[in-house]
């Protein structure tokens, strides 16, 4: 998508560029969308923009390109994001800067302004999130600040398109901010000496580069392609200046800047005192009606899930369970209400900020998390992966040889059995009609027919059908729930809650984004491991995603099958997978070289998510995903087809027989399921389940066999699409190494589990 646009913009001569610069999570991407009319993923999670987006400026006679940069707290690079942002500013181009500042965090924003001023770049400032600033009872004397800085300040609310036109107009009058910081004699001396050493071809002011070099930005030396001699001379100056201070120079420079900004803001920012109070009615409704109801449901649901797990072991009658669940609800109302009324009722805080605190509360947040996960499972696993997939796969696409039988077009009233059938739709499935059409020219056992419409590995019958019938509903619904979590600010709070857990795995709370996304689709999640700070963390995250995080397609089917057997077995399944994730994560964090990073994350405010943004985001993500995944599924199916035709599949089956039969104690027929797992994880589950069912004949399946099979298939190879992305992101060597570890490991765990279950005689 980006490539195509880039080409078209390169063909025209660009008059100048506008770079959007700002701290993380201040709304750069939203503004980018508004200025260019081009969509980039917008989210309430810091660090989402990793790749740089470029687009053409709308509404100007000149040809102007807009560049969206990743959020940076400083233009001295500490992370990938900041490096990318800085490099854009250093590039040799005619450019103007729109700096976006989260007005309520103006101090931090102006720290970047000081650096832009030192670089000598023309800036226009957008004071974004003006509404939230007002809500917090903050006032900023923009006129006065404007005069001091000599730069236009525009109040904006990007999500409501407020102030955008003014901001557009202000770009023309962008000026270099009038900020000059004196860093003290010793450092100024050092700056002069380094300036003298610098080459003439710099794109920004020498002073800025000198200060960055004094701040230990060694990556910059690489970017500017300094030779060794120059670098050593610069280091000599730096070390001499450093000797005069107890703290690192970078720290002293930032403190000087910060003091300067403090002085700038004196008499400009003031507080009216209390924050704006939320409307009395909605506030009281929240405390007296909504929260009791919600907390009752939380308690009820937690008890419900608990009862489900231990159902087989407690001979409780329906009435006792109901009473227990109601009691759970009651207790939960008690706890939450006590907290809310004792701590929050009189505080006058906004409902969203109360929720923001509640969702990361040391105790009360956990039941909420459980219910959120359950909700996502209901939407994605049951409705998306169950009902919707069934319908699209069986009814819309159908089979090339068998009629689907059509479906009823009907309405029904939820929670009742009343339904009204309008008409029976006599549609037999796209594949059936395609099959019918092809059979005009060839017989169903023709190789061409099998290549495209064969039941085993036909490119259309299997590849295209699966990718669309599965991806559309599951991934679509998952992206909606994920978008909700992202935009409300729940995801970063989840990072806070799970940080300690991720620390054991050698990761930190930041990894929550790829891991949760992995529950939707491991392929996409593997791509987002880029947001992690170090290489080691990215490798661990990729490995764990491939090994232990079941994607929603798989999870839906597994939960469905195991849930119908017994809640206890479902719990064992989760326990095993979870423990393997812990084990492998822990070991790889010890074994792998490199360093992890510290958890340091800003909590964005809890916000009411905007439905349009979520839908738009879901649309773009799904579209992007289809584009990426469909070809991979087609290729995968083709490989499978060749394997089947050449008889290699049967060979692998017989080779794997001893392991499957003797070590795992499973019927040989399940082997095919494991091989299919490489193509589609959920299909493998179904295939294994069917094999076990056939083997059992009329009897019920041995649940232990089922667990062993499902654990192996979960840990077993990632799907082909995921594997390709692993190669792309981590390199072929690492990816194959991971595969070589995962396959034997999953069988080992399965075998050990089999014997443990036998021994415990569960």
């Amino acid at each position, binding site marked *: 998508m980006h490539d195509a646009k880039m080409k078209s913009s390169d063909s025209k001569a660009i008059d100048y560029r506008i770079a959007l610069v700002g701290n993380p999570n201040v709304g750069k991407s939203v503004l980018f969308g508004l200025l260019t009319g081009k969509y980039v993923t917008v989210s309430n999670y810091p660090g989402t923009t990793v790749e740089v987006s470029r687009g053409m400026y709308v509404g100007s006679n000149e040809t102007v390109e807009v560049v969206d940069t990743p959020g940076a707290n400083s233009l001295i690079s*500490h992370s990938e994001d900041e490096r990318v942002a800085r490099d854009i500013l250093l590039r040799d181009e005619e450019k103007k800067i729109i700096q976006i500042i989260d007005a*309520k965090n103006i101090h931090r924003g102006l720290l970047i302004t000081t650096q832009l001023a030192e670089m000598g770049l023309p800036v226009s400032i957008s004071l974004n999130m003006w509404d939230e600033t007002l809500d917090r009872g903050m006032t900023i004397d923009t006129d006065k600040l404007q005069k001091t800085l000599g730069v236009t300040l525009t109040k904006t609310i990007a999500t409501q398109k407020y102030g955008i036109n003014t901001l557009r107009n202000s770009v023309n009058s962008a000026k270099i901010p009038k900020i000059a910081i004196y860093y003290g004699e010793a450092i100024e001396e050092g700056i002069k000496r380094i300036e003298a050493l610098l080459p003439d071809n710099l794109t920004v002011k020498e002073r800025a580069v000198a200060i960055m070099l004094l701040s230990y930005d060694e990556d910059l030396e690489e970017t500017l392609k300094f030779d060794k001699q120059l670098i050593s001379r610069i280091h000599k100056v730096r070390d001499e200046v450093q000797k005069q201070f*107890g*703290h690192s120079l*970078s720290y002293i420079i930032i403190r000087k800047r910060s003091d300067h900004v403090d002085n700038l803001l004196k008499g400009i920012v003031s507080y009216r005192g209390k924050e704006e109070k939320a409307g009395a009615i909605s506030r009281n409704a929240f405390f007296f009606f909504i929260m009791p109801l919600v907390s009752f449901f939380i308690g009820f649901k937690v008890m419900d899930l608990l009862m489900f797990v231990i159902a087989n072991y407690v001979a409780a009658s329906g009435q006792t369970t109901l009473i227990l669940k109601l009691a759970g609800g009651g207790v939960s109302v008690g706890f939450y209400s006590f907290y809310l009324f004792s701590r929050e009722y009189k505080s006058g805080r906004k409902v969203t900020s109360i929720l923001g605190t509640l969702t990361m509360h040391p105790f009360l947040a956990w039941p909420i998390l459980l219910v959120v996960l359950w909700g996502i499972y209901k939407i994605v696993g049951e409705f998306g992966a169950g009902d919707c997939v069934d319908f699209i796969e069986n009814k819309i696409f159908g089979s090339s040889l068998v009629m689907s039988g059509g479906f009823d077009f009907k309405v029904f009233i939820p929670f009742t059995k009343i339904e009204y059938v309008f008409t029976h739709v006599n549609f037999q499935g796209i594949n059936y009609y395609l099959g019918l059409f092809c059979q005009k020219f060839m017989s169903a056992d023709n190789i061409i027919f099998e290549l495209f419409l064969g039941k085993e590995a036909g490119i259309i019958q299997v590849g295209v059908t699966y990718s669309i019938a599965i991806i559309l509903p599951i991934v679509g619904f998952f992206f909606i729930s994920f978008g909700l979590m992202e935009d409300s600010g729940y995801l970063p709070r989840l990072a806070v809650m799970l940080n300690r857990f991720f620390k054991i795995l050698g990761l930190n709370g930041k990894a929550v984004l790829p891991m949760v996304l992995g529950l939707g689709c491991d392929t996409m999640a593997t791509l987002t491991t880029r947001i992690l700070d170090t290489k080691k963390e990215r490798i661990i995250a990729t490995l764990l995603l491939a090994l232990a995080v079941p994607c929603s397609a798989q999870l839906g089917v597994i939960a469905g099958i195991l849930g119908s057997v017994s809640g206890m077995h479902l719990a064992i399944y989760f326990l095993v997978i979870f423990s393997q994730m812990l084990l492998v994560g822990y070991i790889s964090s010890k074994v792998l070289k490199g360093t992890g990073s510290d958890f*340091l994350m800003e909590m964005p405010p809890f916000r009411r998510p905007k439905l349009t943004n979520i839908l738009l985001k879901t649309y773009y993500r799904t579209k992007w995903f289809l584009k990426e995944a469909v070809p991979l599924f087609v290729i995968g199916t083709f490989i499978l087809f060749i394997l089947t035709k050449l008889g290699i599949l049967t060979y692998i089956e017989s080779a794997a027989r001893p392991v499957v039969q003797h070590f795992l104690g499973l019927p040989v027929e399940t082997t095919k399921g494991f091989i299919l797992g490489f193509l589609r994880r959920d299909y493998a589950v179904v295939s294994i389940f069917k094999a076990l069912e056939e083997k059992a004949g009329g009897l019920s399946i041995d649940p232990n066999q089922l667990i062993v099979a499902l654990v192996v298939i979960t840990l077993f190879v990632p799907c082909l699409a995921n594997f390709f992305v692993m190669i792309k992101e981590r390199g072929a060597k690492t990816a194959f190494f991971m595969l070589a570890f995962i396959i034997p490991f999953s069988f080992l765990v399965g075998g050990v589990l089999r014997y443990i279950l036998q021994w415990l005689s569960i």
Partner: protein
Amino acid sequence: MADEIQIEEMLEYIWMLEEDHGKVESTLVDDKFGNEIAKKYLNEMAEKKLISFSNSRIVFTDNGKNRAKLIIRRHRIAERLLNDVLEMTGDEFEAGACQFEHFVNEEIIASICTLLGHPAVCPHGKKIPPGECCTSARRKLGPVINPLSIIKPGEKVKVVYVTTKSHASLDRLSAIGVIPGLELTIHQKRPSIIIQYGETQLALDKDIAENIFVRAV
């Protein structure tokens, strides 16, 4: 005045010899300061009843011992200050501590001692003789400066200094605004530490919080 400093230096040295060997041979003092100077000042010290001689050994009088104790205490507290708070190293740090001990008074040392949380040993691992502030502190006050990681939720504190092993973490913190002088509130400690300042809520690891030193406000 110069005499006083010289005497203090010698008292300090004698203390250290006694600490290490349990006894002080006067020849060791001669070796360190030179025969002439040692003779001159040791006699002066004996006159002032700070030390006495028994055979070839030097012994502190009670008076001398108390004086030496105060000097040692000043020196080692200074070392802690320069090393931990000002992060000086090497020669600079030793020289600084040596100058420091001669011109600060007991009151200032007591404040610094309290500020640092009444340290018991110097950076070299030697004992710091406890002062009055240390013994009374055990009864009344806790240390004034604490790592952020032990502050209770809801408390408002001011950042005094940040010690982070790697420059990168220090810079990341300072770029987000966590620098000395910042007033912040501990929002919560579990499951992760969250601090609030201005309109910013920041979640951080315990490892980082242990390196941020704060004072209650």
